[in-house]
Every structure is written in structure tokens, then in C-alpha cells.
């Protein structure tokens, strides 16, 4: 399908280290089964409530975060053009956004860490 992802990238910032980490996966490198799993995970993570951590997506003024929590930015590239979904802060120790966490686990398993530019 034309809306299927070509590449999925998650950028993590924050944490006490304050360093950025980037994980990315190319769909063409995956088996048919893995691709189907990735589509399911992306759809779940793009669901507005999951993507925004409960807040309305793309709100103009972000709310203050939790000290040293990780923040994630998810980018999904499709044949139809780029689409970006920005997630809110993810508090690993209090309120994990499961859909984003599962997608990140997938990228860590099947994708590659990228150098931060």
C-alpha cells in the first residue's frame, strides 16, 4: 500500500546524560512477517493518545517535562511523502507509553543505531 512505511526512525533525547540516540529501520530489510508487525506497531504508536502521551497532538505550547525523563521523536517516512509524529516526554519509571516502547524495542532488535548528526 502507498501509505506503508518505508523507514521508521525514533530519536531519543533527555535522560540525565542529555545525549541523543537514534534508531532506524528500513522496511525493505525486513521479512514479510516483520513488516506486518512493524505496520501494526506504527499504527498503534501513531494513535493520537499514544503519540502525545495523553495530551492533544501538536499542541502549540509544550508542557513542562519530568526531570531526566526520556523524550522521543518518531519519524515515519512513506512513499506518499514524509510524515512526522512528535511524542511527548515518556516517563519510563512512571507512565510508559507502551505503544512507543514496543516500537522502540522493535527498532532496537531489527534496526540499526545511527550516529547523531
Amino acid at each position, binding site marked *: 500500500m502507498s501509505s506503508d512505511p518505508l523507514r521508521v526512525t525514533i530519536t531519543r533525547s*533527555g535522560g*540525565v*546524560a542529555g545525549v541523543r540516540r537514534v534508531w532506524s529501520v528500513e522496511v525493505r530489510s525486513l521479512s514479510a512477517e516483520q513488516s506486518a508487525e512493524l505496520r501494526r506497531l506504527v499504527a498503534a504508536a501513531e494513535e493520537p493518545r499514544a503519540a502525545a502521551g495523553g495530551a492533544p497532538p501538536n499542541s502549540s505550547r509544550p508542557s513542562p517535562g519530568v526531570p531526566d525523563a526520556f523524550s522521543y521523536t518518531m519519524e515515519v517516512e512513506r512513499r506518499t511523502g514524509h510524515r512526522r509524529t512528535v511524542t511527548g*516526554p515518556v516517563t519510563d*519509571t512512571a507512565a510508559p507509553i507502551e505503544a512507543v516502547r514496543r516500537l522502540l524495542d522493535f527498532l532496537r532488535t531489527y534496526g540499526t543505531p545511527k550516529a547523531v548528526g
Partner: protein
Amino acid sequence: MSYRPAQPAQCIIPPYLLEALVRNGTAEQRDWALRTLSLDASLRMARVLSGPARPPVAPGRLTAQPRPQPQRTIFDAQGNETLPGREVRAEGGSPSADVAVNEAYDGLGDTFGCYRDAFGRDSIDDAGMPLRATVHFGQAWDNAQWNGEAMVFGDGDGTLFGSFTASIDVIGHELTHGVTQYEAGLAYLDQSGALNESISDCFGSLVKQFALGQTAAQADWLIGADLVLPGFHGSALRSMSAPGTAYDDPVLGKDPQPATMRDYVSTAQDNGGVHINSGIPNRAFCLVATALGGHSWEQAGTIWYDALRDARVGPNTRFAGFAQATLRAAQHAYGDAASATVRSAWTDVGVL
């Protein structure tokens, strides 16, 4: 590295109790306390006598309560993400065979001791809050966090980062987020967030310097130097004396911290760059501590601590507002020369 608390107080009665005696004791107690205090403490006493910065200590509490002691409990999440995990060491318990457990226990004690002996603070909330920490949280979790109630430590990814219990300054950093939560409540976004981060770095470094008995000149002014592994291309997570120089890594890129307002980074990531722009107030603190000399917690630390508790410093305070608070604190506690030193530092980093 093993940290043992220094013996900072020559007198068996800690300075904050002496201050409380001056405030609330009988005439005889007050005379004795004033005589006992050192010159430095006497200068601080002028502030205590004239300023309302610290809440008065109830007279009954002075005589009835012993010196505050930490109440630590360490838990082990055993690689899971369920808090708090299994209790593995309580206050006064024997050391564990697990290094991370002991590092967390000692780091919490060092932080408690620094706040108590240098600033007269009784735990995170200044009311004796028990300290709880969980180690081995998650799988390869490369983070440490104060979650509003307790500390959580990960083991690191094993390539770039080792256990986050290894750096005492990171432990001090995290617990200081709790102190800030109870004091100024700086909002974790943009400049107030970078200030929140900087306060944690400043006091995190002070905890390490206090535990090692170092002067400002002897301190490394690095954050996280003890948790980075050989796979990490750099010396630490951040450098307070030279922001932007801590690392240059093929995976992580180059340390993005600015040293002055001219290079302030506007970004939507990281809550508006709170871990990036903290380099600016970090350097101001380092400049002040180095210029004033001696032990950083004595004057520079006191100035920053008083500023954090200044009634005019609140959730939305920005760099310039905090700088003004440090000027007031320096003037009040140490007079014109210290105030001029503080102004010079903030001017150097482009905030004033």
C-alpha cells in the same frame, strides 16, 4: 572509586544548629553559639539574624532531636521495570555483595550529609524524608531519575555507559531535582528547565567535592565521569568549567553545550534543550566557586542554595532572574566583593 564522607565540621555541633541557637536560644546559648562559630559562619550569621530566608527551628526540636540522620532503603528491580523491587539494604545494614547497591547507599548518604552539614538541610524536603532508591531498573536502561518520590538507577547500555550508580555527582544531581521540587519548583522547560538542570549539576558536583574534601581548584567539574565506559569518546557527560568539551563521539556526536548566551540553543527537543543550555549557568557557578576559592560549598554553594530558596525565584524564573537572586544572596551573606565576583561571572557568560 569509593567515597567516604569528609569530616567538614571541626565543631561537634553543626553550623545550622548553632544558627538556630542564635535565633531561638537563651541569651547564654546565643553567646556561646556566636563564640563557637568561625569567621565564615559569623558572616553567614549576619544573614541569619536579619533575613527570613530559612524557617525558624522550633526550640523544642533543638534540644529534643539529635543530628538528622539519613533513612535509606535500597531496592533491586532485578532487570524489571516494577518499582520499588525487592528490598536489599536498609539503613545501617551490612554492605551488599552487589556494587550498585552499595554505591547507591553511599551516594545517598553522601548527598544527605552534604546538604545537612553544608546547608543545614534535613533531607530532600528539609523535613527528614526517607531516601529510597531502586537499582538494576530495566534492561540496559541508560539513565538515572528522581521520579518525584524515589531514585531509580539503570545499569547502562554496557558499551557507552556503565551503571548510573557509579557517579556520586549523578546521584547528587538526581536528589537535587527533589530539592528543587520542594524549593523553587523550576518548571522543566526552556530556560527555567535549563536552570533546574544546572542547579542539579552544581549541587551534584558539590556533593562529590564535599565527599572528597576537594577545593574548587582541585575539583574536576565534570558530571558523570565515573559512569562512562571506554567505548565512550570523551571524559564525561558534561563539563561545567568548559561546556561543550566533554565528549566528541562517533555515535553521540559532539557535546552540544554552550558556554555563553551567544550560543544559546533553541530547540524543541529535550524540553527545550534543558540539558544543553544548562552549560551557561553551570559555567557561571564554576567561575564563582573558582574565583571565591576554597571549598565550593562554603560560599558559592551557600549563595546558590540561598538563591534557590529566594522567594522571588519560582517556577518560571529564567537565567537573569536567578542571577539577580544570587547577587542578592552574595551581597547579604558575604558583602560587596562576593557580589562583584558573582556579577562578573554572570556577565562573562552573557546573562547580565
